């Protein structure tokens, strides 16, 4: 496994342990995610992938260990450090609001508590909608969107923050194949422009095409490294257990 130079590291976890009640969800995870490129956090259901992201964001209590983002330790993050794209299913899509308003929420981090978004924020919102190809949907109710469109809206909301790191939780869950590939094109564009894109992904199909770098996680860190080095049949078997034969075959394609 290659050791990264410290200024090439976007996210570092040191001995990270997170427990819910008495149950450990993450156990002693030492991981490094490089700057730039697209990194996949891969592992079976219940492997602690979302928890890893949330501990980096500082929104779940960490039992032991430490996380750093671009060299600064855990604690209140600046709005422009991380653009968080939560799982679509965590919000109520029947909430009475428009696509434009949701995307504009990305600007709230820079506003004081009594401030309302103004022209600057609206312009940024328009740009973000354009970037994800949703400019025609600004006035649409969020309840009228398809899964892929919802995901683009969330991505645009993170884009408005102009973050250096995108942390995405299962962006392709429940999204049809066509939307998935056009979403991925957008992510590739972000990464080409210098952003670090990190996503939780539980589907091994196409992982080889998508990621420059992978973390294999199952409560413990199983492997990390370039996709070439780390996404090996042996590591996958260690990560997914005995039933992984079919997954391996698919992953080899």
């Amino acid at each position, binding site marked *: 496994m290659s050791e990264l130079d410290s200024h090439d590291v976007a996210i570092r976890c040191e001995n990270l342990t997170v427990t819910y009640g008495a149950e450990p969800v993450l156990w002693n995870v030492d991981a490094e995610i490089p700057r730039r490129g697209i990194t996949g956090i891969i592992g079976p259901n219940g492997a602690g992938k979302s928890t890893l992201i949330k501990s980096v964001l500082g929104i779940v209590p960490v039992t032991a260990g430490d996380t750093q983002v671009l060299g600064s330790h855990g604690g209140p993050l600046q709005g422009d450090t*991380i653009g968080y794209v*939560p799982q679509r299913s965590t*919000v109520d899509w029947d909430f009475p609001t428009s696509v434009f308003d949701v995307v504009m929420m990305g600007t709230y981090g820079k506003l004081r508590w009594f*401030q309302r978004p103004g022209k600057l924020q609206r312009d940024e919102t328009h740009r973000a909608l354009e970037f994800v190809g949703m400019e025609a949907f600004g006035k649409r109710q969020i309840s009228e969107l398809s899964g892929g469109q919802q995901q683009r809206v969330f991505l645009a909301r993170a884009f408005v923050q102009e973050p250096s790191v995108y942390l995405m939780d299962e962006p392709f869950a429940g999204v049809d194949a066509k939307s998935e590939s056009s979403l991925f094109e957008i992510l590739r564009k972000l990464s080409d422009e210098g952003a670090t894109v990190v996503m939780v992904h539980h589907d091994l199909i196409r992982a080889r095409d998508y990621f420059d770098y992978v973390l294999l996680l199952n409560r413990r860190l199983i492997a990390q490294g370039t996709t070439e080095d780390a996404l090996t049949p042996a590591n996958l078997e260690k990560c997914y257990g005995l039933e992984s034969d079919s997954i391996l075959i698919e992953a080899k394609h």
Partner: protein
Amino acid sequence: MNVSELLSDHTVRVVVLGSAMIGAVSGAMGCFAYLRRQSLIGDVVSHSALLGIVMAFWIVYLLTGQGNRSLVVLMPGAFLAGLASLLLTRSVVRSTRLKEDASLGVMLAIFFGSGMMLLRYLQRGSPPIPGRSGLDQYLFGMAAAMTRADLWMIGVVGAGVLTVMSLAWSRLKIITFDQDYAAGLGLRVDLLEVVLLALIVMGIVIGLQIAGVVLMISLLVAPAASARQWTYSLGRMVCLAATIGGVSAGLGGVISSIGRSLPTGPIIVLLVTLVFVVSVVCAPRRGFISRWQRGRQIHVD
């Protein structure tokens, strides 16, 4: 007596104005409880507030030797007890394996149980505490007992709640829609959450005098649920819910003063419930009729 004569009557004017302000404030705050899927906290807070009301009454009696039932004394007690019940619920959920609904139920039992016990004790104890009669009106509400001083208290608290709501609007909106994302933005979600809960608790305890602890939840939830049927933006939903709550409560005050022995609280509750039923049936797109017609169209096509 016609309506204009009625409204020139001082007592009636106080009741109608007070009820309308209460309806507007609890209607507005109810939207946040409704959208957070926490409508039932209305029931827990209002019942828990009874303990705060009788405690405040008791403490003031012990300090001054006089019973005082004005809102200036009782509302802070109600507010503290109501907020305490919610914050305790949160810490129970976080530190035990109890789920939120069970924890809320436990808090309601503890606070309301002790409130009822203390209420009965104060009412039956001897020597009798001066001013204690009427303390139990908070169970079912008694708008007619509203005084001018109460009206001021309601006005000041209500205006305060609505002012904080509009100032912190963006923050309250984002933590209602997506708390994890708000935390990821670096916002102080825990603090904002307490502020929002405090505003909702104010919106509840402000109305106890007219609706009582038993019926208060309908004044909180029905306007919000009705408004949701007709609008598609949070701002319009809050305005509409405040209007529905305010007009229904004011109208309830008028109706109860026309008829003899008609209780204000239950009339207001029936009015907001009527608005809710009409909204669920008739609203465009979300309403029952509209959805039934669309369903039939698809069938015919």
